[in-house]
């Protein structure tokens, strides 16, 4: 009986000692495990205030251009939803004028992610980041 009580006591006393002293895997600060990619189609619409030669590009995507000129350009790029690439947009207006505008709309899954307007005269070239 004493032996049983002693074993029980040692077992109970041993639990916290085990919990404190057991070897644990080191906490790694790095974010080595990358989240899985979720590829989403992004619909991009460029609309110019007057006819222009429009161009759209993003790294890893096929560049799209209006040929020879148009007032709008629509393209769909499939990109990683966690890190969509920056869009390079260009417009070279057929008839240069003051306050020519280029509107850029980006939608994904029916949601408007970006709606920006750039202003220029002869041409516009800039980068649009998708949130």
């Amino acid at each position, binding site marked *: 009986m004493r032996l049983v009580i002693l074993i029980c006591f040692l077992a109970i006393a041993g639990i916290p000692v085990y919990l404190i002293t057991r070897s644990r895997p080191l906490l790694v600060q790095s974010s080595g495990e990358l989240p899985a990619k979720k590829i989403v189609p992004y619909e991009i619409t460029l609309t110019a205030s007057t006819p222009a030669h429009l161009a759209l590009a993003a790294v890893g995507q096929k560049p799209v251009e209006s040929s020879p000129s148009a007032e709008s350009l629509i393209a769909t790029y499939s990109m990683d939803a966690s890190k969509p*690439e920056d869009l390079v947009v260009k417009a070279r207006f057929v008839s240069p004028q003051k306050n020519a505008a280029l509107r850029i709309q980006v939608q994904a899954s029916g949601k408007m992610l970006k709606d920006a307007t750039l202003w220029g005269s002869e041409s516009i*070239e800039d980068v649009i980041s998708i949130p």
Partner: protein
Amino acid sequence: MRHIFSVWIFIGLATAVWAESIKVASLSTVLSDIARNVGGDRVEVREIIKPGSDPHLYEPTPGDIKKISNVQIVLANGLGFEPYLDKLRSSVEKSGVTFVVAGSAVKPIACMEVDHHDHSHADNATDPHWWHSIANVEAVTLQVRDAFIAADPVGRTEFEANAKAFEDKLKSLSKWVRLELAALPKSKRILVTSHDALGYFAKDYGFEILPVQGISTSDQPSSQKVRHLIQEIKDRQVKAIFAENIENPKVLRQITIESGANLGGTLYADGLGSGDAGTYLGMMRSNVTTIVGALQ
């Protein structure tokens, strides 16, 4: 008629000669460049911190304090970059010097590493390297312009025109940076640097920073930290790591050999360099070109 014309020319020349320029002392190479751009000929900039020197190792000498006492405006970074700033301020206070502290005009961000090596993070781990955001430089340009106008109201038109011209250059630079970086996939926007100084740049352009703590100081990074960093560089296939100042080539060599990454070049993290990197515009262009070239 000829006489009147000559008198006017004489008065004009005399005014130009006798117009006293504002004397400015700068504790930052970037602020010196901003001051020159905004001030033009109406401002005399005395560089206390010179391009290529390490601002962390700087301590004002009695000679510097004397120099600073004789100026009207002192330009400083603030945000804890100059641990001696309060002391300096109190020692030259009686001279009527105005301190223009850039940190009060920018939106500060937090440091990645709380125990960040040799900066004194008096402001509770605020990143003091504000100039790596072009938007911050635009804000400080206006701050410097206003300080110069307050010191020399006659020069208002000139300061305003100069500041506007510099702002236009900054806007062009900003667009150039965006276009250059658009060629770099987001997955490759990882900066392994010897120094956690590019936080503002990382925030503006979607980079992640993995600093090698201690590599540019006497503090050695722990072998465990270096091991983890090497593993992360391998896992994420980072092509290049960047040195600001190779003070510990042994650790950098170890990281490049074991991770397979290349040395991507030198980034100007703590201020302007020399040659093309001797101006703010040149420094930013150099950094961006180095980063894109190495990581693409």
